[in-house]
């Protein structure tokens, strides 16, 4: 894994150099192009970071494979991708993605849904390629947290969707047709124009980069799949059943995150949605009245306690470290109460 990560990372770091080199793109209008090579390099870095974690980046820096500066940039891209989506994607989708991100274990079905969501979002124009790349990054992180139990169809699904996005994101202004073979590897239109680019030979070079990247990703996912089959197959069926019921709060989560994770869980079980105008207590009362939850007083008790802790944490401005621990404990009790 580390070797693959290192390959794609090093590959990404060569891109700025490519961006500075003289280039020429056949059939690519010099004056009306809107491809910003620097941005493109950044995007590709984002793609690469999808196979990286913060720890791997730090290790690569330590081993001298990449410079401190580059390591910092990769880490920034790795950490900021979700924040970049804030305000640009439908909050409910973002919330689903965050949930995936915050769950250390995710149902493969949910991942498939996410892939479908990404593709449909991109197709409907709601998601620009940059967002897509960031989402792919998140997805890859989520896959990692699956303890490598990734079905092979899913891996191919991700690859297909990524190819599709790249295909549909080709610049359109004044462009003439190119060969079918190459068309699927075109790069996203970043929407940032440079006044003039000298002698661009981007398409061919970048195609190779994209192919290499996708091959890296594919290889990684296939390796992940085989390794998971080898190591984890016996546990797989038990685990998937467990995943449906369990939601784990990552270390370092605050009471607010725990509360909203509880709300999502309770919404699912009670079918009572937390409407925007409902206060937290009003929502608790609605849930308590819900016919779906008759006879689950433990769940109501836990959710009530979490609601109170949320109020203290959110509105009192009196930091109390014990509140987080109590909220976390109540959350797990709530999950257990769900059976």
């Amino acid at each position, binding site marked *: 894994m580390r070797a693959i990560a290192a390959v794609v990372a090093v590959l990404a770091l060569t891109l700025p150099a490519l961006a500075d080199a003289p280039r020429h793109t056949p059939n690519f209008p010099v004056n009306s192009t809107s491809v910003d090579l620097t941005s493109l390099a950044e995007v590709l870095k984002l793609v690469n970071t999808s196979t990286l974690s913060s720890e791997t980046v730090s290790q690569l820096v330590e081993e001298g494979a990449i410079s401190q500066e580059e390591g910092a940039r990769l880490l920034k891209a790795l950490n900021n991708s979700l924040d970049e989506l804030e305000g640009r994607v439908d909050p409910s989708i973002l919330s689903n993605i965050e949930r995936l991100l915050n769950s250390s274990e995710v149902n493969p079905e949910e991942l498939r849904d996410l892939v479908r969501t990404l593709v449909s979002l991109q197709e409907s124009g709601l998601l620009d390629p940059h967002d897509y790349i960031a989402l792919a990054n998140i997805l890859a992180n989520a896959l990692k947290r699956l303890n490598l139990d990734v079905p092979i169809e899913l891996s191919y699904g991700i690859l297909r969707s990524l190819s599709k996005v790249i295909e549909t994101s080709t610049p359109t202004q004044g462009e003439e047709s190119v060969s079918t073979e190459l068309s699927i590897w075109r790069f996203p239109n970043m929407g940032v124009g440079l006044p003039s680019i000298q002698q661009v030979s981007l398409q061919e070079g970048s195609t190779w980069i994209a192919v290499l990247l996708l091959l890296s990703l594919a290889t990684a996912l296939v390796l992940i799949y085989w390794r998971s089959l080898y190591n984890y197959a016996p546990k797989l069926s038990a685990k998937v059943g467990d995943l449906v019921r369990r939601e784990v709060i990552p270390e370092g989560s605050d009471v607010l995150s725990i509360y909203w994770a509880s709300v999502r869980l309770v919404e699912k079980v009670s079918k009572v949605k937390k409407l925007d105008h409902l206060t937290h207590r*009003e929502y608790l009362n609605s849930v308590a009245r819900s016919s779906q939850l008759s006879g689950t007083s433990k769940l109501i008790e836990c959710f009530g306690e979490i609601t109170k802790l949320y109020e203290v944490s959110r509105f009192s401005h009196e930091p109390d470290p014990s509140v987080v621990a109590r909220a976390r404990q109540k959350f797990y009790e709530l999950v257990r109460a769900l059976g």
Partner: protein
Amino acid sequence: MSFTKDIRRVLIEGNVLIEKEWEINMIVACLLARGHALIEGVPGVAKTYTAKSIARLLDLGFRRIQMTPDLLPSDIVGYYVFDQKTGEFRLKKGPIFTNILLVDEINRASPRTQSALLEAMQERQVTIEGQTFGLEEPFMVLATQNPIEMEGVFPLPEAQVDRFLAKIATGYVSHRGFVEMLKRAHEIEAAIESLKPVIPRSLLLEEIEKASKVRVDDSVLDYIASIVEESRKHPAVRLGGSPRAGIAVLKLARAWAYLDGRGYVIPDDVKAVAVPALIHRIILKPEYELQGVTPERIVNDVLTKVPVPKP
């Protein structure tokens, strides 16, 4: 904060006042917020008993003025009389020099007399013959009015109404409560007379001070501002909440949170006090008024539109 529990124990659990818990809490909240309350209800729904009981339990001075059209401002604030023995003018203080002033049927007094209360309510002082006198803290006007009476009344001007922190609408008790009340009808008067203070005045002043320091998060302030602004935008409203209305909601929400034993305000406090703090400040368009739309409905409508603070 235990005094609110004591009030509840004595008045509600002791069945001195039946089904008046919300009204009692709201009056105490107004007191903690240093505001005044307008109690609206038909005759015979224990408006006076409620005010009197609270005054007794809180060890506060209590006076009552029955408003009539021929009542003069001096009957409320006081006047100077010539003392023949000393040959000097002597001040005879009016009933306003108390802690809880029950102004019964306030809308039966002439506008001039109603206005005599303005200075006292706003500035907590009165001016008699050019001389200003401060009123003792805590000072609270509890005014009552009958919503049905149409003749021989002078509706309160907006400026006067605005001085009331809350309008507390009180009504009939339930059938069960009514039966319980009938059982105890002969002893209610005596029960109120025998009430003993549950908190000394000095401690009550401390509680008022503490209630004013209840913390309010910026997002809650934003929530209050949105509610008040939304009340102005409502299509059925001719005049919505003023900035003073927003301040009233804030003060009352603080007191409400304090009554609940919290040192911080949550959106539920705002929702709980929004109706009493806003309804008397909202003027509807005549066409909606004729259709039976009420300010209470408007406020409730607004509360279902404005999102509570998130996350």
